């Protein structure tokens, strides 16, 4: 019981600006908030895939592997998660006998990426003000 009381006492010393900052951060990170941080994009490899596709019309599996400096298996797993969420579109073709996988960002993925960037900017802005 002593711990929460002590916390409450300390919290009461917070300035309104600090409270506001904490509220913004809490809202952005909270799972219950409808505008919560998109965990699907937040993961590093997936964030890298989305970022790279945001500035390229399409990228092959080989290109993405080189840009992200990751393994085939790792890239496959993360790309599939994004594909299942309809964030990226995957097109499999054959270059002669060699299978070729091309990825491109979907409209839904673009919107999710823009929302994620806004979240990051809001977070930075909240801590600056």
């Amino acid at each position, binding site marked *: 019981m002593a711990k929460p009381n002590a916390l409450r006492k*300390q919290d009461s010393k917070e300035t309104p600006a600090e409270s506001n900052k904490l509220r913004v*951060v809490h809202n952005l990170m909270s799972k219950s908030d409808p505008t919560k941080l998109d965990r699907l994009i937040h993961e590093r490899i997936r964030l890298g895939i989305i970022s790279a596709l945001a500035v390229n019309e399409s990228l092959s599996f080989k290109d993405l592997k080189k840009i992200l400096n990751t393994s085939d298996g790792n890239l496959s797993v993360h790309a599939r998660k994004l594909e299942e969420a309809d964030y990226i579109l995957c097109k499999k073709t054959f270059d002669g006998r060699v299978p070729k996988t091309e990825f491109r960002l979907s409209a839904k993925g673009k919107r999710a990426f823009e929302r994620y960037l806004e979240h990051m900017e809001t977070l930075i802005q909240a801590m600056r003000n």
Partner: protein
Amino acid sequence: MVANRNYSAQRTEPPALHTSAMNNIRFIRDMMERSASFTAVPGWGMTVMGSTALVAASIAFFCTAIETWLVVWMIEAVFAVSIGFVTMKRKANAADAAIFTGAGGKFMLNLCIPILAAIPLTVVLYQNGLAASLPGLWMLLYGVGVVTGGVFSVRVIQMMGYCFIGLGVAALFAPASWGNVFLAVGFGGTHILFGCVIAWRYGG
């Protein structure tokens, strides 16, 4: 004490999130820069460069003194670099792309170093009476710059670079009197051909 320690841990959380957000933004920017291609290579600018090279080649064809021939091609080089730079800058501005940072910066650096290396080599070869090797050397070094710069641009740029390398090597082993023809085909024809392809496929 325990309560205070917990509280201070709670208070340091927001700055850590702020740092994390900054790191994420940096990571996104880095990924975008690493994956972006420099597409502001000027197609129409290259066709103009090719046309001036054809004019220079026809003037140089009638030059009897090696000094005059060299001056004609030096003037053409200055013209071509100026046209290339101005048209590239215009295309980059229109596409809101940078030519000195990111993929554009890497393209420029890789393109310019072999071109700059040609300057002292030209002086040395001329002083040693080996001016006949200059057409081959110029095209070879330009081709190397275009191929290495082309790594950061669209694939057709690298193809143009390979054409220049091939022409440069051929010119080095061809009779000296064919120098002007090689320069006309290389700096003239190749620029016009690939300039049209770039303008058609990548706009302007």
